[in-house]
């Protein structure tokens, strides 16, 4: 009985939301989440937006530093498999995924960029994730961070179209 219940609960929970009423999903969520939280939609929909992240960091003394936090990591990962570079590359890819989720108009066939002026970019998830990444990078590299400007150069791997997304300045209050 428990086996059947567990299987049905996971089945309902992981089923695509378009085809499973939210009310039914809500019934099993308290059991499934967070311990058995799962979806398994790996690489579906097929990822189409690749990109590169550029940070311009300004220190408390006013020094500027231009950083491409993932380019060396991805280059290493392409040569050396089975190292920590793989996980860090996935981190970079996931950041690009969240950036594209926030700024690409997925309802259009050619996946155009949304009107960025109409979006409160500093309230998006990608902004928060990028801000954490910039702060973490600076802390790890002993860079006294005051300000960060982040740009993402996105590329649609299907159409070849490119888009530049410039995030609002991120400022830290440093005493």
């Amino acid at each position, binding site marked *: 009985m428990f086996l059947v219940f567990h299987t049905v609960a*996971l*089945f309902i929970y992981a089923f695509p939301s378009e085809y499973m009423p939210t009310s039914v999903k809500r019934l099993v969520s308290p059991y499934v989440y967070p311990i*058995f939280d799962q979806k*398994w939609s790996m690489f579906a*929909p*097929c990822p*189409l937006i690749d990109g590169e992240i550029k940070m311009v960091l300004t220190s408390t003394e006013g020094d500027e530093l231009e950083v491409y936090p993932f380019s060396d990591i*991805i280059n290493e990962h392409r040569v050396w498999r089975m*190292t920590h570079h793989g996980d*860090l590359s996935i981190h970079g890819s996931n950041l690009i995924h969240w950036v594209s989720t926030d700024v690409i108009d997925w309802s259009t066939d050619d996946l155009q960029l949304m009107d960025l002026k109409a979006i409160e970019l500093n309230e998006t998830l990608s902004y928060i994730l990028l801000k954490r990444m910039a702060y973490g990078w600076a802390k790890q590299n002993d860079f006294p961070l005051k300000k960060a400007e982040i740009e993402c150069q996105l590329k649609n791997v299907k159409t070849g179209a490119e888009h530049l997304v410039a995030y609002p300045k991120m400022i830290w209050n440093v005493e």
Partner: protein
Amino acid sequence: MQPFQFHEKVELFRKVLYIFLFFNTLILLPAAHDLFAYYGTVGTRGWNTELSFFEQGSYGLLNLLSHPINARFEWLYILFIGGQLVALVLGFFNKMPRLMSFAVYFFTVNLFSKGYLAFTGGEVLINFMLFYLMFIHPSRQKEGLGSDLQPIVNHVFFRIMLVQVCLLYFFSVLYKLLDENWVSGEAIMYVSRFDAYSTSWMQSALENNTILSVILTYTTLTYQALFPIVVWFKKMKKPFLMFGVVFHLGIAVGMGIFTFGIVMILVYLLFIDQESVNKIARKLRLERFIESV
């Protein structure tokens, strides 16, 4: 209730999974701060400070490394890594196996939750498998401990592990079939254009080769769709799983999604017959650790 006859199989899986996790953690050490520290580049999962720790329920227990206290004691993640490694070693040598299976799950799930943005379905599957393994142990009735419920629990959780793997494949193919690029067969061609998910040789072979992409995309879809069915047929299972090993090695090495590729191969141990279990245990020289259970 019939005795639980899959102990060797489950124990072989547990040992191999522990070995893999041990080396996986060592491999991640150079990036440990990025992934697991409160101010690592991956960031935290967030913590609802308006709720008390107890009000967070099990979510709090699985996300301890995102608790704000880690900001003050940033080294706490090192304790989790150390704890995981020690628990894996003790668990491997059958020292306090029940306690260690819990400890391995506790430390691992917290580490993987913290580094979630750099991880894949492989880490999620490991979490589930470690959770289910906490319940599968030899009966302690002979020692005068416990009740005869243990074989029932073993049977249930062993089957849950098998079902879990089948659900993974089922949903993996279902979500893909809802996407036009997978259905058109072009998905693998597009994925190969990502530097993070390919190598230079993979890119040159695939990035503009629609025919090869269609073949590989449909091979992937067919394998994943057939898995939950074929794996229950003894005769077809062996060659099918061998194909699966090659398929997942391709994901691990070709696409560079190492943990996911390897973990999927490891879970196949749960589906193979007893004879193959013995053979693999002998080859890996793990027999004595399994017999001692």
